[in-house]
């Protein structure tokens, strides 16, 4: 029941971070397996949605770190690999503006990209984001503002 209710939210959160469908599938499955293992310890004073999102965001960031370590990729090379995946994704590569936007997002550090995705695509409130990420609202606002500026600079580059 939990899977059917939240599978799309978790999948799209992961997909926007890891780009590749198979990787997003791995992350999504891991999230729900962890949720299943931890559900007995879930404190019902917290919202299920927030709790599940916290697991999902941690899993995304952990996956990105492991991927980089596995291939000994510094940040620049990881960005290059994901950029190639964007080029190879038909739904994106045909739309020049969207392609450039997705490549702009890849220039952001993982956590900042996650914050941007939560705010821009899911319109999550800073209050909720603070509960999900364990980061202060102030830092999240600053992070999002910086992200928008960096993205716009990238979009307006030749």
């Amino acid at each position, binding site marked *: 029941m939990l899977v059917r209710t939240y*599978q799309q939210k978790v999948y799209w959160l992961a997909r926007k971070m890891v780009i590749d469908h198979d990787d997003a599938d791995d992350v999504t499955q891991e999230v729900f397996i962890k949720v299943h293992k931890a559900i007995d310890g879930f404190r019902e004073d917290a919202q299920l949605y927030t709790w599940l999102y916290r697991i999902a965001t941690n899993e995304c960031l952990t996956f990105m770190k492991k991927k980089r370590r596995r291939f000994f990729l510094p940040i620049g090379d990881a960005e290059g690999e994901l950029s190639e995946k964007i080029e190879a994704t038909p739904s994106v590569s045909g739309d020049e503006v969207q392609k450039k936007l997705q490549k702009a997002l890849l220039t952001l550090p993982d956590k900042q990209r996650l914050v941007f995705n939560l705010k821009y*695509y899911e319109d999550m409130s800073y209050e909720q984001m603070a509960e999900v990420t364990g980061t202060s609202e102030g830092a999240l606002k600053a992070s999002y503002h910086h992200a928008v500026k960096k993205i716009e600079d990238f979009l307006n580059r030749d």
Partner: protein
Amino acid sequence: MIRLDEIPKKTPFEAPEGYFDKLPGRIQARIATPEPAMAWGRMALRYALPVTVLAVAAFFLWSRPELSPEEMLARVDSEQLVAYLQEADLNTDDLLEAVPLEPAEAEAIEQGTMEEITLDDLDLNLLLDEFDSVGKQ
């Protein structure tokens, strides 16, 4: 000048057809399959090795005279500190998380009204000299 709010907001990717219909069943199958027990050798490596490393580190730390963090840092060559900071995967967001921002400061950053600090060459050289002299004390 392209602005982000001028770009149509849409999910850029597509999931394979039928993916979400099959996903719950696949996850259920994984949950139902018990995980294989870890081999003793791997368990020993996983737990005994970190404990051994920690014990050795604790022995060496305990046997040295106590130094404050500042004293330990003062013993590190400033060139090594600079090299470490240059190599470290630090970014603005990591620093932002470590710094407790006042609401007014966060607001100022969000509004883009915080003045950027710019240094001319003379000020930058003075700053670097100050940094070097602190390291040599």
